[in-house]
């Protein structure tokens, strides 16, 4: 539909929605529960919907052990998952959008729409008329805080600090396990300062009337410039020293000998107290921006000090997507708090009200009992529509911005064995900071895209539209990679993990849930057949020889990895070549093995096939024989050729049938198969399945084994644990190997014992 609602003031922007609306309002047909947040210029719509997509299921059947027979069946099934959709657009489009929603809203159960924001009142009748839903008004601040709690808990790298003169200017924060208490400073037309103590308890502790409205209103009077964005643009070009009275104006040159900063503002607009001079619009706007930002920063610091808080999140239209105001506010906070208070901003700040309103309406579903994950495929990145950063893109996308969040099946929590959950950073290299590495990996993923597309098509031979969907996948992922080239900060800290996860999200989006299912099935079948022979060989070795052989087996298995670029031919014989390895603490490990057995080992497995069956299981078996209990944790959902939890159950069952050690361990629950809660080739130990975390605590795990490049090198290489840990991998990427000072197929064997 064409947007017809014209905005007063007669600007010449094309009001038509340039994106196909079905890409903006996705999954409307299953939508239920709506919420809307109408601000001064932007509307944010939230709805809950279900998404039906294909999943590959594995099923065990009576296994005869005949040659060429697969070890289990794969079937593709439909699965329904829950998703939250958030759409942000200019108020101009509101009528067109409501019309579109009305036309596509099939679900009739919904009776109510939660509304918040200053504009909710104004558009109440329009919404009720168009959607035939009753508008329930929700308190603005309550919604804001509910939304803020939600994103801080569920979206990694939600918060960031602004760093002037660094590239990029945003530095993302790892999620603190305890988000409370914090201060929220909302800079709308005025300023509200709210102290948030728990999920449900918050208190308005103060405010100021000098806010965004003051900048806008006073700015419009001074410069005859009507629009907020234009005022900011003016400010970014001005010199405030022409308008402000600075210390050097009061002290003359002496400020230098006194060591005073001549550039401090003694009196804002102090120089304009004259009829003799004209002042430029730019200079006045800049002076006004400093005056207001400094004032807000000062008050925020005074409140933070009074309430002993050091984390202050800033939001509101004054901040929203404007590096200029983030910069001045950050400066002010640093200045007045002397660095003791941190000014934080949020990637999804614009959505807080809509999220909160939605949560208010969905209380009976209790959305807070679930964990949610940002869907990179369906979400626009930070600054996707910022005129300051990307003027062309803004025009192209018609200023629509999207956020989608998937409801995860199981709640996610920290691994209880993390040494310090608040400082744990899963990723080894921050590609946002490291431009060289970023360039390399983006190119690497671009080059691998053809292969992934082919693999996806090949995985669904019976499907008529597989090629078409695969092509859509290619376009989607390619455009994400291009966005990330220009805006590496778009989805928080850019890492190899986020690139991999984005690819998985995009594959899922186009119904390629598990392109490797057949490969994994075949590999598992082959490896299972070799299992008895491998065990016989191992058992024939002396104790010390066997320990080395087990480790080499783990490493050798890990080379067989369809996901890695260098391993097109799965037979490199060099993986376990002569020690010393690139990182080699094997002797220390061997020494440890001569000591008392571990109580319980937690093992994160990597690939299907040879890796898990001929590498991990023999290793597990040895631990079991030593009297160590083992928790084997595999991915909940598919990612590349990684073994999934469901596959691991079947594999274990097959092995148990061949091997009495594994058999009895399974029966006696000395070997436990668990799921990680993740569908990523990497591992974030701060977001693990709650059941796994509980079990780890119950069993008193005292050894963590992390295997594979994705889990032990791209992530967790520097992870500090409270117990012993073993991180092993073969570097299957020559660039990375070189960076680490080794060569392709270099071996990492990192055994660490925490300091007492």
């Amino acid at each position: 539909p064409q947007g017809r609602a014209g905005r007063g003031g007669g600007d010449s922007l094309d009001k038509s929605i340039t994106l196909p609306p079905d890409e903006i309002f996705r999954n409307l047909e299953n939508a239920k529960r709506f919420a809307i947040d109408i601000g001064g210029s932007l509307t944010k719509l939230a709805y809950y919907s279900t998404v039906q997509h294909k999943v590959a299921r594995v099923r065990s059947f009576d296994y005869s052990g005949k040659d060429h027979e697969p070890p289990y069946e794969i079937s593709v099934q439909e699965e329904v998952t829950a998703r939250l959709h958030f759409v942000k657009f200019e108020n101009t489009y509101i009528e067109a959008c409501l019309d579109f929603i009305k036309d596509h809203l099939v679900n009739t159960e919904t009776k109510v729409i939660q509304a918040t924001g200053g504009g909710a009142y104004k558009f109440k009748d329009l919404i009720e008329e168009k959607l035939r839903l009753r508008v329930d008004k929700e308190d603005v601040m309550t919604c804001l805080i509910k939304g803020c709690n939600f994103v801080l808990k569920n979206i990694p790298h939600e918060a960031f600090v602004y760093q002037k003169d660094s590239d990029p200017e945003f530095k993302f924060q790892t999620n603190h396990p305890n988000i409370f208490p914090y201060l929220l400073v909302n800079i709308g037309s005025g300023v509200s300062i709210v102290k948030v103590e728990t999920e449900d308890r918050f208190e308005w502790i103060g405010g100021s009337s000098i806010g965004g409205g003051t900048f806008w209103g006073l700015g419009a009077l001074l410069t005859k410039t009507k629009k907020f964005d234009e005022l900011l643009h003016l400010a970014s070009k001005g010199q405030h020293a022409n308008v402000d009275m600075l210390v050097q104006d009061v002290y003359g040159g002496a400020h230098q000998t006194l060591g005073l900063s001549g550039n401090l503002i003694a009196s804002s607009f102090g120089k304009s107290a004259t009829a003799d001079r004209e002042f430029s619009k730019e200079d006045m706007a800049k002076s006004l921006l400093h005056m207001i930002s400094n004032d807000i920063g000062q008050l925020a610091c005074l409140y933070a000090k009074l309430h002993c808080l050091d984390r202050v999140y800033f939001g509101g239209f004054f901040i929203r997507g404007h590096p200029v105001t983030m910069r001045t506010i950050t400066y002010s906070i640093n200045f007045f708090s002397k660095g003791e208070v941190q000014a934080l901003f949020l990637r999804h700040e614009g959505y807080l009200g809509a999220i909160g309103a939605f949560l208010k309406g969905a209380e009976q579903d209790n959305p807070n009992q679930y964990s949610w994950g940002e869907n990179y495929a369906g979400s626009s990145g930070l600054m996707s529509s910022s005129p300051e950063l990307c003027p062309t893109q803004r025009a192209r996308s018609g200023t629509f911005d999207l956020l989608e969040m998937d409801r995860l099946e199981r709640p996610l929590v920290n691994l209880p064995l993390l040494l310090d959950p608040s400082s744990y950073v899963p990723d080894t290299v921050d590609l946002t900071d490291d431009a060289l590495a970023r360039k390399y990996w983006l190119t690497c993923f671009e080059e691998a895209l053809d292969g992934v597309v082919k693999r996806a098509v090949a995985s669904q031979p019976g499907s008529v539209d597989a090629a078409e969907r695969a092509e859509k996948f290619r376009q989607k992922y390619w455009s994400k990679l291009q966005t990330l080239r220009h805006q590496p900060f778009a989805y928080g800290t850019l890492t190899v993990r986020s690139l991999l996860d984005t690819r998985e999200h995009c594959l899922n989006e186009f119904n390629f849930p598990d392109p490797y299912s057949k490969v994994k099935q075949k590999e598992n079948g082959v490896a299972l057949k070799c299992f008895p022979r491998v065990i016989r060989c191992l058992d024939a070795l002396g104790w010390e020889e066997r320990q080395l052989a087990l480790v080499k087996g783990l490493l050798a298995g890990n080379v067989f990895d369809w996901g890695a670029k260098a391993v097109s031919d799965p037979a490199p014989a060099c993986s376990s070549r002569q020690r010393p390895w690139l990182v080699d603490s094997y002797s220390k490990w061997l020494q440890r093995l001569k000591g008392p057995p571990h109580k319980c080992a937690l093992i994160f497995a990597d690939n299907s096939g040879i890796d898990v069956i001929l590498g991990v299981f023999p290793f597990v078996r040895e631990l079991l024989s030593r009297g160590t209990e083992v928790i084997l944790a595999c991915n909940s959902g598919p990612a590349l050729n990684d073994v999934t939890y469901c596959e691991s159950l079947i594999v274990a069952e097959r092995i148990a049938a061949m091997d009495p050690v594994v058999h009895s361990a399974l029966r006696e629950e000395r070997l436990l198969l668990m799921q990680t809660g993740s569908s990523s080739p990497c591992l974030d130990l701060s977001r693990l399945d709650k059941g796994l975390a509980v079990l780890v605590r119950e069993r008193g795990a005292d050894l963590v084994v992390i295997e594979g490049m994705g889990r032990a090198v791209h992530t967790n290489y520097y992870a500090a644990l409270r117990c012993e840990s073993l991180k092993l991998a073969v570097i299957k990427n020559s660039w990375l190997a070189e960076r680490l000072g080794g060569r392709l197929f270099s071996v990492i064997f990192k055994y660490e014992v925490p300091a007492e």
Partner: protein
Amino acid sequence: MGAWLGRQRWLLRMGAGRLGMATERHGRAADASASSAGEPAPGGPGGRRRELLRRRASSASEPPVGASASASASAEGVRRSRPGSYSGAPSVSRQRVESLRKKRQLFPWFGLDIGGTLVKLVYFEPKDITAEEEEEEVESLKSIRKYLTSNVAYGSTGIRDVHLELKDLTLCGRKGNLHFIRFPTHDMPAFIQMGRDKNFSSLHTVFCATGGGAYKFEQDFLTIGDLQLCKLDELDCLVKGILYIDSVGFNGRSQCYYFENPADAEKCQKLPFDLKNPYPLLLVNIGSGVSILAVYSKDNYKRVTGTSLGGGTFFGLCCLLTGCTTFEEALEMASRGDSTKVDKLVRDIYGGDYERFGLPGWAVASSFGNMMSKEKREAVSKEDLARAMLITITNNIGSIARMCALNENINQVVFVGNFLRINTIAMRLLAYALDYWSKGQLKALFSEHEGYFGAVGALLELLKIP
């Protein structure tokens, strides 16, 4: 970072009523300010100064902007507990001052405070001159005395606040009247020229001066007027001045006052306040900018913070918005305006009180918030804008002062500075806002000699009156 910060720990102070707010020039400046909270000031003034110079030298390679911003940041919160000092006084004038300790200072007795906008001059006119003295009095001195005391206006901009004159004051054993004179800082060159014309330098007097202008105009005083300034720290002078003036009262009346029922035009009353327990005291000096001091005793105070949104901001923005040319004109316009046409009130947004947060409907939600709308911009008068400007700046100062009082655990707040001159609207608003938002816990106090305390402090330094 730590090491870098270490070098930045300069211990300096900043001026009263002038230096407030930061602006951004260099990213590291702000980070640097992370350093020296609560850093004790080293030793006496001399030591402090040497320390400063040494540190400057050691960090010459650091970016100057960042360095100085950190200096100013560290100035805040530095508790100062020592008697008045001669910050940055050249050794020559220090020797002169030292020599004063031995004998009484020769007339004329001046104290000068050269601010960003206004120069404040206090002059002690001895009334107990003996015939002998009168005979000995050199012509130039007599001419100064006659000129200052027989006029109420000097040139086109100098004004003597006759109503503030303190009569029959005894200073250093001499009886006389204290006169209060002000003129704009931009007329400083004319003032120095007058000093030259009246041959001040022949009097061998010492000019004790404070405020930023004491530094800015030092060279002009020397080269044009052949006068050596004794430069004094403005916060020291301010604190000294206010404590002294309060102690001598106001010609038999109380110096300090407060407002009862400040919000009620009918019932509002200005009442004397006996500042018998002055400590601790939050001192808010509103000049062009604002300085906020916590005063714990005669010799123990610290600068808590400051803001650049002060009298200069009110007047500067009024000039831009209304075309007014004087402070008096701006205030007069404000007295006739209606700020609620300009500001967005809580009731404009919520239709009444915002009960969830206990916000009354009359409270301003967004200063100048109505000016976002073109129609409303066209519907306001200059008077309305002046009024809104006055309310905005005043409320903000009240708000910052209240937060400082809470943080410092002080419940009496004295507002001084020339922003409050003939500015009953601002004083009543401060009185009301402080009382309302603190639920009666904080009391706003005012002082008759609003803007002259720095100059008085300078005079006291000249006479070495403790």
